[in-house]
């Protein structure tokens, strides 16, 4: 399986408040409405221009700060296919995969990827392909891949129990 998309590139220590502002966490609940506020305080052009399948590429500690799950789901609702980062905050990482958003830790790819370029993630071979070359990342366990492909943890468990 392959994922291909255009890159939005950001820096280090991007926190959940700029990914999805805290003031909306209890008042903004609908899927479309959550999507509209994604990266609001980081990059105002994002929501206007994002296309389904786009990929976010970021530096160290992406998603640090609060545990709010919307920081991951607001990206999913905009059709973002994956986030590749040098490292993730623990809770964002869990929230991403548990919401069906592929989170890939690959510092060498992050260094090499240029903003706006089209890259490919080859999930079968666990490599990121970009203009500068091919970069391997550590594979996710089969069950985590299952969670991402099912669209999130709750959907995954539902499916698993239904077929058991």
């Amino acid at each position, binding site marked *: 399986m392959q994922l291909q998309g255009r890159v939005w590139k950001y820096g280090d220590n991007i926190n959940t408040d700029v990914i999805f502002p805290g003031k909306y966490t209890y008042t903004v609940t609908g899927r479309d409405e959550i999507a509209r506020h994604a990266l609001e305080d980081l990059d105002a052009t994002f929501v206007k221009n994002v296309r389904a399948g786009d990929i976010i590429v970021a530096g160290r500690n992406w998603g640090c700060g609060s545990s709010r799950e919307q920081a991951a789901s607001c990206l999913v609702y905009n059709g973002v296919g994956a986030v590749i980062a040098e490292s993730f*905050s623990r809770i964002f990482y*869990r*929230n991403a995969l*548990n919401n069906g958003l592929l989170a890939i*830790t690959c510092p060498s790819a992050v260094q090499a990827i240029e903003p706006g370029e089209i890259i490919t993630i080859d999930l079968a071979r666990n490599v990121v392909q970009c203009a500068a070359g091919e970069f391997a990342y550590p594979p996710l366990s089969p069950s*985590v891949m299952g969670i991402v492909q099912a669209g999130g943890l709750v959907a995954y468990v539902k499916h*698993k129990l239904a077929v058991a």
Partner: protein
Amino acid sequence: MTNQIYPPQTFAQKALARAAGLDYVEVGQVVDARPDVVLSHDNTAAIRQIWLEFGQPRVLIPDRMAITLDHAVPAPTTKHAQNHAEIRAFVAEQGVRNFWEVGRGICHQVLSEEAIVLPGQTVLGSDSHTTHFGWLGAFGAGIGRSEVAALWATGELWMKVPDTLHIVLEGLLPPGVTAKDFTLRVIGDLGADGGIYTALEFSGAGITALSLESRMVIPNMMAEMGAKNAYLPPDDQVIDYLARRKAKRENQTVSDEIVSNLKAQISNLALYPDSGAPYAAEYHYRAEQLEPYIACPHSMDNVQPLSQVAGTRVQQAFLGTCTNGRLEDIAAAVDVMRGRQVAKGTRFLVIPASSQVLTEAMRLGYIQTLVDAGAVIGVPGCGPCMGNHMGVPAPKEATISTANRNFKGRMGTADSEIYLASPAVVAASAVKGVIADPREL
């Protein structure tokens, strides 16, 4: 299974390999872990709502679940009471045996006293301070509610093997300086994000010299640095404590023979890091150089020496919580309070972490001394720690507390201040009505 063929490993590597049924795991690897214990508390009813989506008639792992009613006890409102009632019905319906009622105590304390979690085991809980269980050499981590629901349904959950920071406490803490002060100092130095996604290992003479109750403070509070788990190497004292309590819970007579059999079983479970394990960083502290510290409003890493903050007016002093609500904490307060009175204009709340702590404190006359000194005693549980009920400060008031979190609004009132300190400092502050050093009373 031999370890020799693998490179040296951290505790987190060994514990997660065991939980995943693997011989060896690498840092960064994602595994499917089968925790030995899954903890939840008053949030159990909310987790059940998620679990219901799975359409499963029975949870898969009733015997690995542990549920305590502790966060808002006894129920302060009809809504809270309804929540507790739903949890009781769920527990009965699913046959969850490890269930503790209102008044038994705080989840982390109760599971420790009941020896539910053993060294080398993995405990995952829908409570951020599940890191607590590192005091006995277990792998304890907090997880989300839907993750707990998934565990009830399937018994396993994915875990990423974290990097490890190694913190060594050399030498012995001077009198008047506690595990709480050491912990606050570490958080102040490394920052509130200093341990994100990492495991922590503590070692050194300063750690092994601590009482078991003091050891609990350290991993409990490492959640405040964003850590996934924190580990202290279990020694004979830990194993003896667990063996006796396990024997008691299983209604065995606590004879020498039974205890020594259980000790052998428990020490077989214990895991220790290898020398040469791959630490991402190492920090060394000299215990003699530490002093009493205070975490000041409104963040955990705003840590100042007590001497800098002494004299700040407090309207409320609170001794309790899973961090510092144990017998030795109450004893430290009693030492300060004996023959003294709570200051006019200040309230002193004391809430034992469990019914066992309360019983012992009564037997030793501590409760009488505290009540005579003007303290208010509450029902074992979380009390005012997270602002659910009782002990809520008024706007503009300041509280000094033995808890683990001082975020704005944590105790229920945004426009109020929370200072965190050790039990003796909290008691001295209750006596003076201002933040005070017990050594100067």
